[in-house]
């Protein structure tokens, strides 16, 4: 499937270099309470054909990050800074009109809730062929045939019939497949999947993630998988970036992250996950408190108020991103697994003394 392109592919870099380079990206919103910095100086590089997982909780900035990179944010009340370079071409100064040539054709996104990302009043066929006709200049019949083939390729049974149906007539899993078909229709090079399976059941989740992986292989596509679920990214990504309070706090190849993590936040996140492969009533180690206020973030390390390794230095000074090994960066004064880190933990343990009174923080094994 090599679609004709309406847009001139005048990209300086097409081979060898990174597909996407993000430099010091910042996004801030003007809110009644003040300036809310949702993404605070994020930098990353993406090589073609790889999968990056972006993990974080609500308020971490992961959703705003993917939309900032695609430049999909509303213009009113939003300030952006930094550079985004896609295939050697800088996206930051482009107008909306120019960006529209890129959206769908070069970069696409799928969202969490397929019910709200599909137009409920438009038949599915039209929603798919819309994109085909706009970007690839297809005639109505060509687009229809293409749409049927697309639906079949994403595993939707009786695709011809589906073209005439409305979103509400399909189940959640099928709807998500349709949104994937729409996103992939014009063969984009980069796909952002923003919590694509959060709203779905676990068996459907597995189907959808398998589908995305298969499509990625077939099309040699690069994918960014944004999720709050560490389990989802564990087996399906090449690299993982952990976000907290608008920043990337740790980034590493997947296997390295899980075996040699340096950030206490990453460690705490992993320890607080209930596991289906651990016995019943396994105590969960809890991260106390809540994520910080992004209008008025704390001085020093943003995770420090909740960190079990935190020392005075952490509350005063913001740690910079440092490299632990090639491709593995983190930002911490007392990282996990180092003598400094271990010392910090012991010092805090001695200071805490008795077991915490808060019943949510710990529970004893029966």
């Amino acid at each position: 499937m090599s679609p004709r392109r309406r847009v001139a592919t005048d990209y300086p870099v097409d081979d060898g270099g990174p597909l996407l380079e993000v430099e010091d990206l910042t996004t801030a919103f003007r809110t009644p309470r003040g300036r809310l910095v949702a993404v605070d100086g994020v930098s990353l590089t993406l090589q073609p054909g790889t999968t990056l997982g972006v993990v974080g909780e609500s308020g971490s900035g992961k959703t705003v990050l993917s939309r900032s990179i695609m430049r999909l944010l509303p213009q009113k009340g939003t300030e952006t800074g930094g550079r985004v370079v896609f295939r050697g071409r800088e996206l930051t100064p482009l107008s909306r009109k120019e960006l529209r040539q890129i959206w769908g054709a070069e970069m696409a996104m799928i969202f969490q809730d397929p019910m709200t990302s599909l137009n409920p009043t438009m038949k599915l066929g039209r929603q798919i062929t819309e994109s085909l006709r706009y970007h690839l200049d297809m005639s109505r019949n060509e687009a229809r045939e293409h749409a049927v083939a697309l639906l079949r390729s994403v595993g939707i049974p009786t695709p011809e019939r589906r073209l005439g149906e409305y979103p509400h007539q399909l189940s959640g899993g099928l709807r998500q497949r349709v949104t994937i078909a729409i996103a992939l229709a014009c063969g984009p090079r980069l796909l952002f999947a923003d919590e694509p399976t959060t709203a779905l059941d676990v068996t459907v989740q597995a189907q959808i993630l398998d589908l995305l992986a298969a499509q990625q292989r077939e099309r040699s596509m690069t994918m960014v998988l944004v999720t709050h679920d560490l389990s989802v990214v564990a087996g399906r990504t090449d690299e993982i970036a952990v976000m907290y309070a608008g920043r990337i706090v740790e980034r590493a190849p997947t296997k390295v992250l899980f075996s040699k993590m340096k950030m206490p936040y990453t460690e705490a996140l992993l320890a607080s996950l209930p596991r289906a492969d651990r016995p019943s009533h396994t105590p969960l180690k809890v991260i106390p408190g809540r994520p910080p206020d992004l209008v008025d973030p704390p001085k020093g390390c943003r995770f420090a108020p909740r960190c079990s390794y935190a020392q005075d230095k952490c509350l005063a000074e913001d740690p910079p991103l440092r490299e632990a090994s090639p491709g593995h960066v983190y930002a911490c004064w007392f990282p996990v697994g180092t003598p400094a880190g271990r010392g910090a933990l012991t010092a805090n343990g001695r200071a805490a003394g008795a077991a915490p009174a808060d019943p949510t923080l710990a529970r004893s094994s029966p």
Partner: protein
Amino acid sequence: MADLVVEPILAADEVRAEAAGARPRRFKLTFWLAAGWMAAITFVAVFANLLPLPPPNKPLVGPPYSLPSWQYPLGTDELGRSMLSRVVFGARVSLEVGVAAIVIGLLVGGFFGLVAGYYRGKLDAVISAVANVMLAFPALIFAAALVAFLGPSLEVVILVIGVLSIAPLTRLVRATTLTHAGREFVLAARMMGYSSRRILFREVMPNVIPSAISFALVGMALAIVLEGALSFLGLSIRPPQPSWGNMIAEATQYLTQDAWLVICPSLFLFFTVLALNLGGDTFRAVFDVKESAL
């Protein structure tokens, strides 16, 4: 380290931040202007008798067709009557009609709407059917018929407009009640073993009241306009008693001689309706923000 509540507002969700930026939390200037206007109009209407104004129906207080001046702040009409007095007493009529209509609408319509939305079933079916019939009935014809039957007077007009405001309020309150009655806190209240009456009046109703009030404010504006239309058609209080509507009606014949006679009451009507609409909107915006602040 117990997880205590320190600051009320949590780390802002990014998408919510966008929405919050679009909605003002505090009252804007337009709201204060609207509130000020309504306060002024209400004040003069209530204390009309105590104000140092010439009687509204007394002719030749000054030369006819006088333009606004220091002596006659809003000028005089074709019979030399003080426009200011007439507008003030006309305001009284409009406000009486507006407030009474709203009160009838809220009390009767609100009650039935609550009951229909909470209990559902046959009760809802009956109430909704009656409301639909009332809504379908052409308002002006109903008004004209009643006035023809009972004679034009302020009481009749209030009755007519009051009855007309029942059905829309029933519909609105029913819809809002349905929304809130479906929420989990109502289920939790049932789980606590609260009686239906308690749930309806202490759990659901407080949530319904804000939108009912904001709708009612806008409805008040409509009531005032409707009264204006009725008196324009001669179906409301008869001249020489002033009402904004009949002042406009009478003055149209003198349009070429003195347009001010038409413009003056029209402006008062316009600003009052505008103020009520703005008030209703702002009221809703403030309460909406609070609820969706999560």
